[in-house]
């Protein structure tokens, strides 16, 4: 007895030292605004149908840039979209309008996603102690288009600069706005992890909940609202695709296909409500999936270059923290940006970790449908993984005609009705920021 107790204790110590999720964390709500759906229902229909949101994209301001395609958030009115969300109590509806009614696009997209997750998680009916609820916003440098759009007017008449500029240019405007709308009083901050930001936020939320700092957390995938300067910059370093398939935008993003040539920019706001099992149980919400492991590691590398060792280390560590063997993972939602080097290195790292299991591990990349949502990609893809786990299907790996590898089991062009139990989702960022998380089917 005492021996077993000691052993248990030492395992606990180890998991705390590893600072991964210390216990499974429930996903009790999801919400999304994207090019392929303005709520989770539409989004999951699009995943199932393999619908791409990538299209021609003419920028409204600035000089023409070489790549005019992307997966853009549709123009929407927050007031009209708000009417579509059922069951929102009047005071909450009013706060959304007051706090975000005239905010930049990204904030409105995130607010709408958060509202959907909030209602799905039943927080309007069975509330949480506001001081035990947190907000973690994934992403940094979120609104360059907002500043870029004001620049010309500022040059002419600095006196007329909107007094809201000092609020909106800061990423923390997301934290402030969401905290006022949802009356959140626990921890709240933004995390920057480049294209891995979404997974970084999920991992940090699990740590805060597992460490009992908070009971639940709104994890927000904030859209990266890029200006023409950022897009030209990505183009200049050869990271952006869309050159050869310019006349067929929905073919431009082709993760793991021999004709991949760089990422295609996408926009999405996403929210995942993570909650401790005890809190979810107390509130009587079963949840739709669980986060059971996660790892964030650095390559020691300031460049955009992917690194096989770092990626393999993150995946292996996430598995160890979830207490899983590679053979137990059914499905990998790959980082898969459709970048030649990135896709190739990820395949190598996956093979290094999964070894002989690689031929039975289903792999797809949601970016083939949504484009690369950069700061919010991790949250978007965790939501995609949770939906596929819950609903028992795998979405197509879009545009895979000539795979770069014949041993990996990439998903076909049609979605598959497959029951999957355990999934991994990778997100890798410039600057050697490497993450992997594990999601499992079912709530508590």
């Amino acid at each position, binding site marked *: 007895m005492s021996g077993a107790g000691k052993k248990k204790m030492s395992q606990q110590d180890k998991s705390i030292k590893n600072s991964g999720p210390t216990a499974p964390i429930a996903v009790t709500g999801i919400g999304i605004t994207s090019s392929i759906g303005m709520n989770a229902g539409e989004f999951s229909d699009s995943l199932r149908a393999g619908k791409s949101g990538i299209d021609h994209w003419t920028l409204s301001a600035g000089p023409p840039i070489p790549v005019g395609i992307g997966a853009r958030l549709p123009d929407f009115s927050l007031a009209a979209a708000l009417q579509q969300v059922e069951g929102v109590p009047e005071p909450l509806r*009013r706060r959304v*309008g*007051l706090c975000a*009614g005239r905010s930049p696009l990204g904030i409105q997209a995130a607010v709408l996603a958060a509202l959907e997750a909030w209602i799905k998680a039943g927080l309007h009916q069975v509330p949480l102690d506001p001081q035990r609820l947190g907000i973690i916003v994934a992403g940094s440098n979120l609104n360059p288009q907002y500043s870029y759009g004001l620049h010309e007017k500022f040059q002419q*008449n600095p*006196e*007329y*600069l*909107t*007094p*809201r500029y000092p*609020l909106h240019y800061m990423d923390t405007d997301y934290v402030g706005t969401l905290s006022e709308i949802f009356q959140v009083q626990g921890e709240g901050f933004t995390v920057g992890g480049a294209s891995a930001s979404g997974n970084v936020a999920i991992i940090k939320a699990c740590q805060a909940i597992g460490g009992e700092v908070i009971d639940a957390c709104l994890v927000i995938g904030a859209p990266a609202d890029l200006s023409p300067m950022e897009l030209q910059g990505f183009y200049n370093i050869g990271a952006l695709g869309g050159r050869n398939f310019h006349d067929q935008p929905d073919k431009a993003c082709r993760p793991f296909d021999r004709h991949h040539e760089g990422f295609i920019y996408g926009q999405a706001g996403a929210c995942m409500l993570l909650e401790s099992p005890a809190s979810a149980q107390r509130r009587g919400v079963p949840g739709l999936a669980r986060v059971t492991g996660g790892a964030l590691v650095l390559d020691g590398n300031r460049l955009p270059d992917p690194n096989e060792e770092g990626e393999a280390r993150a995946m292996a560590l996430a598995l160890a923290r979830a207490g899983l063997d590679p053979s137990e993972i059914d499905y990998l939602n790959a980082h898969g940006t459709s970048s030649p080097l990135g896709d190739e290195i990820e395949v190598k790292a996956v093979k290094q970790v999964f070894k002989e299991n690689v031929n039975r591990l289903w792999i797809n990349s949601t970016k083939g449908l949504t484009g690369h949502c950069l700061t919010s990609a991790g949250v978007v893809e965790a939501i995609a993984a949770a939906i596929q786990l819950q609903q028992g299907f795998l979405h197509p790996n879009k545009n895979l005609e000539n795979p770069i590898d014949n041993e990996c089991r990439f998903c076909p062009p049609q979605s598959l009705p497959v029951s999957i139990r355990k999934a991994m989702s990778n997100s890798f960022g410039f600057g050697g920021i490497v993450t992997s998380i594990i999601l499992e089917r079912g709530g508590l």
Partner: protein
Amino acid sequence: MTQLDVFQTVKKVTLEVLPFLPPEEVSIEKNLKDLGANSIDRMEVVTRSMESLGIKVPLMEFGKVKNLEGLVDVLHRFAN
């Protein structure tokens, strides 16, 4: 430009900044704070009114303004 013209501009801007406000509540003796405008909203009414009127008023001129009438007076002075 009359004081009434300036007031109509201020009223229009105020209703854009505070969309929930019933238009009849925006009268000359009211102050923006009582109408529900926060500190940023109040600055926005000032900035956008200046822009609509095509004038530039040093912000310190508004230091002693107590209500919409005072705001209209300052703007009117610079608009003519």
